[in-house]
């Protein structure tokens, strides 16, 4: 029974890993550079697994989620700056994901986009209001597994497997090195998006993890995110095989879904769209919760879906307000795919202030006792912190120099 539960959790983590940022950046990186950037996805996936495991362990042992630790470790002032940055990036991401949901619904139904934005917002609000935390994770996680169609598509497209294997070896591209580095930064940002750790750690508290659940935490972080990364590989391989040769830049979610239609026909298209719908819908809810978690934790309010809606009133009102703000942004008609690119690049800048407090608390024996970071977690944690810092400093200049990846 226990094994069964862990397996279900992992399945949900796989389906929940991919969001609109991963879809856009992996497919676009494939279309621009073939399989050359696969190694960056590996670095990103190991990074998010390391930090998720760490913040999940902190949540299980001390009952603290990420913004509790931010406030405690960097103090009120720097914490407030981090909070504002996190909330801005989070809102942009949510708006992009909601736009993605509406696009998928339009492609599936043919109804007008603006109406579908409204439908998407109302549907998300109802789901969050009515459905329990566990079931939200399950429904969207399992639905997202339809994205595995991209793995089948990747194989069906008969890529040059030798070239794919070569893509896993870290190397630089000398022809268009600036754009190459821009995509590398974007892929890291998409894999390590900060809302994932906000949501993951708060989810641990929602599910009332105790040190007994540390095995589950490790399995979710390592296997769930690891196999989720497998979906990212598939997307990039499809992009590289299908779009690079044709010189197509996948600028819409519809083009991304085409990646499954070309090798697999209508059924491929349908599965891809349903998969994207659930993956992006799930990510909408994750980002929505993340925004409300962050504010409530920073200010010490009662929070959590496990408290019932009326049990955590300010938390409930916060997610409602965030949902309305996102509606306003998407309704302006901004292109969700472009918004995604900006959200991912800006999120990279907010990463160091999110990850440093996690690393510090996971090393604090006074809370963590014998569950304090071991040597492996610390080595990886520090190496990744240095990577994140370097990437954060270069992200915005690169975005300007490459004209947001347009070359």
């Amino acid at each position, binding site marked *: 029974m226990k094994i069964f539960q862990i397996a279900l959790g992992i399945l949900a983590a796989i389906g929940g890993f991919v969001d609109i940022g991963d879809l856009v950046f992996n497919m676009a990186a494939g279309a621009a550079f073939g399989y050359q950037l696969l190694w960056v996805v590996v670095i990103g996936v190991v990074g998010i697994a390391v930090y998720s495991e760490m913040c999940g362990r902190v949540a299980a042992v001390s009952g603290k989620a990420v913004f509790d630790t931010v406030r405690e470790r960097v103090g*009120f002032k720097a914490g407030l700056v981090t909070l504002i940055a996190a909330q801005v990036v989070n809102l942009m991401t949510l708006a992009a994901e909601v736009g993605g949901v509406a696009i998928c619904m339009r492609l599936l139904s043919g109804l007008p986009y603006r109406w579908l934005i409204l439908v998407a917002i109302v549907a998300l609000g109802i789901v969050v209001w009515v459905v329990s935390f566990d079931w939200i994770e399950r429904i969207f996680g399992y639905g997202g597994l339809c994205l595995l169609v991209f793995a089948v598509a990747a194989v069906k497209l008969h890529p040059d497997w030798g070239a794919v294997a070569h893509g896993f070896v870290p190397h630089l591209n000398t022809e268009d090195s600036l754009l190459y580095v821009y995509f590398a930064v974007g892929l890291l940002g998409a894999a390590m998006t900060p809302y994932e750790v906000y949501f993951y750690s708060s989810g641990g508290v929602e599910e009332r993890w105790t040190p007994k659940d540390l095995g589950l935490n490790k399995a979710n972080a390592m296997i769930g995110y690891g196999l989720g990364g497998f979906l990212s590989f598939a997307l990039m391989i499809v992009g590289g095989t299908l779009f690079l040769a044709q010189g197509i830049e996948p600028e819409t979610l519809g083009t991304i879904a085409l990646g499954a239609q070309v090798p697999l026909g209508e059924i491929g298209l349908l599965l891809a769209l349903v998969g994207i719908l659930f993956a992006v819908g799930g990510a909408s809810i994750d980002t929505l919760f993340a925004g409300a978690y962050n504010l409530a934790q920073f200010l010490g309010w009662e929070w959590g879906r496990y408290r019932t809606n009326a049990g955590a009133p300010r938390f409930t009102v916060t997610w409602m307000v965030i949902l309305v703000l996102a509606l306003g942004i998407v309704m302006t008609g901004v292109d969700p795919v472009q918004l995604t690119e900006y959200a991912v690049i800006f999120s990279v800048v907010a990463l160091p202030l999110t990850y440093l407090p996690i690393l510090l608390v996971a090393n604090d024996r006074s809370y963590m006792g014998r569950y304090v970071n071991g040597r492996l977690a610390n080595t990886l944690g520090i190496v990744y912190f240095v990577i994140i810092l370097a990437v954060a400093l270069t992200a915005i200049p690169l975005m300007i120099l490459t004209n947001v990846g347009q070359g």
Partner: protein
Amino acid sequence: MSEELDIALAILDHQLLDVEGRRCGNVDDLAIEGGPGEDARVIAILSGPGVWRNRGRLLGRFAGWVGGGGRVRVPWEEVAEVESHVRLRRKASEYGLGRGDDRLRPWIERIPGANR
């Protein structure tokens, strides 16, 4: 410096829990007593937006203004336990903590399914 002061400084910015385990604010500041040469002693925990202006200059002042400026003083004797959170001896409402949630609750409860 007394041992009590060490503990107190370590709880700055930590979560406050009331006797029922309800989250009811943070330790936003501390009231400390004692002149030069004397033993410094913590006499109370301060919590609420009105305290933030001491913490974050312009940004803190602005946040405090947005938050409505309320502040609550909890005497140090009311602290039951300091672990990863700070646990108080009585219910939040008895200190005036968590009032924002208490004011909003009746409105939320009007919507069907509020207790799901």
